[in-house]
C-alpha cells in the first residue's frame, strides 16, 4: 500500500552485537541513569505544610459574598439551584425585617442555603447564573470527612466572614 | 560430654528415620528425611569430619532433598489416589520385610562391642588430610568422577538446547 504520509519508518531488527549481548554495558548505562535521578531535586510537594498555588480559573469551595457594607448579597432568587446540573443546591427564602437592614442587601434573603458537596461537580454554573454576584467558587479544596451529613454545607460554612468594623 | 551428645543425636536420627517410614504424607516424610540428614551432619561434626559434614549439608540437605521435595510437591500424592495393592504384592512385601529383619538380626548377633577406637590423627577428617588423600593415591578415580559429573552437567545443558530446524 502506498504510504499516506512520509513519516513511515521501517523498523529493522538487527541482531545484537557482542557488547549488547553481554548485558553489562547496558546495565551500567541504566544504573547511571537512575543514579543521575538520585541527585535530582524531588518533585514532591509536602502537602499539608506546602501548598501548590491554584491556577487563576480554579474552582474550589463555594463562598457566599457580602457587599461593601458587609451585607449578604444573596437574594434567594433560586437561579443557582435551577442552573445546577447536579441539583446540589437547596434554599429557603425569607422576607427581610426592617431591623435586619444592615444584614441583608435585598428585601428577600436566603434563610437556609445548603450545598451538598458530595453532589457538587464544581462546574461553576451557579457562579455564572447568579445575577447578584453573590456566589463564587473561590475557596480551597473541600476537606474530607467521615459522615455523609457533614458534607451538606450550610450558611455557617458558606457565607464569608463579616467585614472588620473600622 | 561428647558421648552423651552422641547418644541424644543418635536417638534423634533413629526417631526421625522411623518417622520417614511412618509418615502418611509423602511431603512430611521427605521433611523428616531432611531432619535425619541434619542429624547425620551433627554426627560428622562429632567425629571431627568438618568437610564431610558440610558436604553432606550442601549436597544432601541443600540440593538433593530440594529436588525430592520439588517432585513430590508437583505429584500431589494423597490417600485418595493411592492405588490398592493386590494380595500378591502384599505377600511379596511381607516376605521381603521378613528377609530384611532376619538379616538385620543375624548381623546384629555377629557384632560384638569393640574397644573404643582412638584415631591416631585427630585431624583425619579435616580438609587438608582429605585433600592430600584425594589428590595423592586416589588422583585418577577422583579426576575421572569429576569429569563424569561435568559431562553430566554439560549433557543436561545440551538436552535443553533446541535443535536447529
Amino acid at each position, binding site marked *: 500500500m502506498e504510504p499516506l504520509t512520509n513519516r513511515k519508518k521501517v523498523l529493522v531488527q538487527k541482531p545484537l552485537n557482542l557488547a549488547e549481548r553481554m548485558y553489562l554495558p547496558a546495565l551500567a548505562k541504566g544504573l547511571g541513569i537512575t543514579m543521575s535521578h538520585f541527585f535530582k531535586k*524531588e518533585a514532591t510537594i509536602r502537602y499539608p505544610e506546602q501548598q501548590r498555588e491554584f491556577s487563576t480559573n480554579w474552582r474550589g469551595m463555594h463562598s457566599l459574598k457580602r457587599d461593601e457594607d458587609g451585607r449578604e448579597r444573596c437574594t434567594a432568587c433560586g437561579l443557582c439551584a435551577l442552573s445546577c446540573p447536579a441539583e446540589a443546591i437547596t434554599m429557603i427564602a425569607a422576607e427581610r425585617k426592617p431591623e435586619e437592614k444592615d444584614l441583608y442587601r435585598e428585601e428577600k434573603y436566603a434563610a437556609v442555603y445548603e450545598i451538598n458537596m458530595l453532589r457538587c461537580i464544581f462546574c461553576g454554573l451557579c457562579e455564572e447564573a447568579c445575577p447578584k454576584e453573590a456566589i463564587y467558587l473561590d475557596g480551597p479544596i473541600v476537606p474530607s470527612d467521615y459522615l455523609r451529613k457533614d458534607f451538606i454545607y450550610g450558611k455557617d460554612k458558606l457565607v464569608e466572614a463579616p467585614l472588620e468594623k473600622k | 560430654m561428647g558421648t552423651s551428645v552422641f547418644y541424644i543425636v543418635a536417638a534423634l536420627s533413629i526417631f526421625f528415620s522411623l518417622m520417614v517410614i511412618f509418615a502418611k504424607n509423602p*511431603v512430611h516424610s521427605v521433611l523428616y528425611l531432611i531432619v535425619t540428614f541434619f542429624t547425620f551432619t551433627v554426627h560428622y561434626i562429632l567425629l571431627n569430619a568438618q568437610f564431610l559434614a558440610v558436604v553432606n549439608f550442601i549436597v544432601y540437605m541443600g540440593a538433593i532433598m530440594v529436588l525430592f*521435595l520439588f517432585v513430590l510437591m508437583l505429584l500431589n500424592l494423597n490417600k485418595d489416589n493411592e492405588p490398592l495393592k493386590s494380595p500378591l504384592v502384599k505377600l511379596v512385601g511381607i516376605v521381603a520385610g521378613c528377609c530384611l529383619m532376619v538379616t538385620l538380626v543375624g548381623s546384629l548377633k555377629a557384632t560384638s562391642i569393640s574397644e573404643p577406637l582412638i584415631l591416631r590423627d585427630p585431624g583425619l577428617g579435616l580438609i587438608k588430610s582429605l585433600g592430600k588423600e584425594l589428590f595423592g593415591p586416589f588422583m585418577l578415580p577422583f579426576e575421572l568422577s569429576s569429569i563424569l559429573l561435568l559431562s553430566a552437567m554439560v549433557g543436561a545443558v545440551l538436552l535443553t538446547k533446541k535443535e536447529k530446524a
Partner: protein
Amino acid sequence: MEIAFVIEKLILVTIIFGISLVIAMYSTYAERKVAAFLQDRLGPDRAGPFGMFQPLADGLKMFMKEEIVPTESNKWLFMVGPGLAMLTACIGTAVIPWGSAIQIGDHLVQLQVTDINVGILYIFGVVSLGVYGVMIGGWASNNKYSLLSAIRAASQNISYEIAMGLSIIALLLVTGTMSLKEVVEQQHGWHWNVLYQPIGFILFMVCAFAETNRAPFDLPECETELIGGYHTEYSSMKLGFYLFAEYINMFVSSAVMAALYFGGYNYPGMDWVLAHTGTTIGPLIGTLVFFGKIFAFIFFFMWVRWTIPRFRYDQLMHLGWKILIPIAIVNVVVTGLVIAVIEKF
C-alpha cells in the same frame, strides 16, 4: 575459663543477632527511601524526623494485623515456613569475621563467632538451605500460586548454586583456604580479591542476587504472575518474617561479598591507622570500614532493584545454565592455569 569463653561468645552472638535485625529493619526504610530518591520522590517522612520511626510503625502494624491461617492448609508446616526462613537467614552470620581481634584490658576478643576451617562451604550450605522456608511455606499454603512460586524459588536456587559454587572454587584456588578469617587476613591493605578475581566477583554477585530472590531475579514473588508469590496466603507477623528474612539474607550476602572479595575489615593505610590508634580502637575502625562496605553493597542491591526490570523465567534459566556456568568453568580453568604458571616460574 570455659564459662568465660561461653559467655563471651553468647554476648557476641546476641550483639550480631541484634545488629542484623536492626539493619534488616532499617533496610526496609532504606529501600523505600532509595526507591523514592531514584524516582525523584521523598519517601516516608512522616513518622519521626525524616521518617526514622517508619520501620517501628511498620513492625507494630504487622504485629497488630489479624492472623489468618487458610482452612485447607497444612497448619503445622504453614507455621514452620516463616520461622525456617528466618532461621536460615540468621545462622549465616556465625562465620563472618566482623573485625580483627580487639584488646579489652589484657584479653583478646575475637570478633567472629566461630572460625571453622570450612567457613566458605558453611555459608554456601546455609544459602542452599534458605530455599526450604520458601518451599515449605509455599506448599503448606495449599494455593496453586504459592506452590508455583515455591517451585520457581527452588529451581532458581538450585540452578544458581552451581554457578556460585564454581565462582567460589576459582576464589579458593587464589586463597588456598576455606576459613573466612584467613581469607580476610590475606587481603591485608589493598590486596583485595576482587583485583585478582574480577570475573569471579561478577559471577558471584549475580548469583547472590538470584539466591536472595532480589530483583531482577525476584521471580518467586512476581506480582504480575503470582499474586504475592509464596507468601500470598500469609498475613500478620508471619508475612513480616518472610519479608524480614529477605532483608537479612541481603545483609548476610552483602557481608559475604565484602569479606570474600572486598577485603572485609581491611583498607588501604590500615597499618598506619592501627599504629596510631592502638589495639582497642584500631580494630573497631576496621569493623566500621567493613560495615561501610556492607552498606555500600546493600545500597547497590537496592539501586539495581529500582533500575532493572524482572527477567522472564526462561531468560533466568538461560542466563544461569548457558551463560554463567560456562563462564564460571572457564574462569576456574584460567585461574588454575595462571596459578600453575606463576608457581612454575
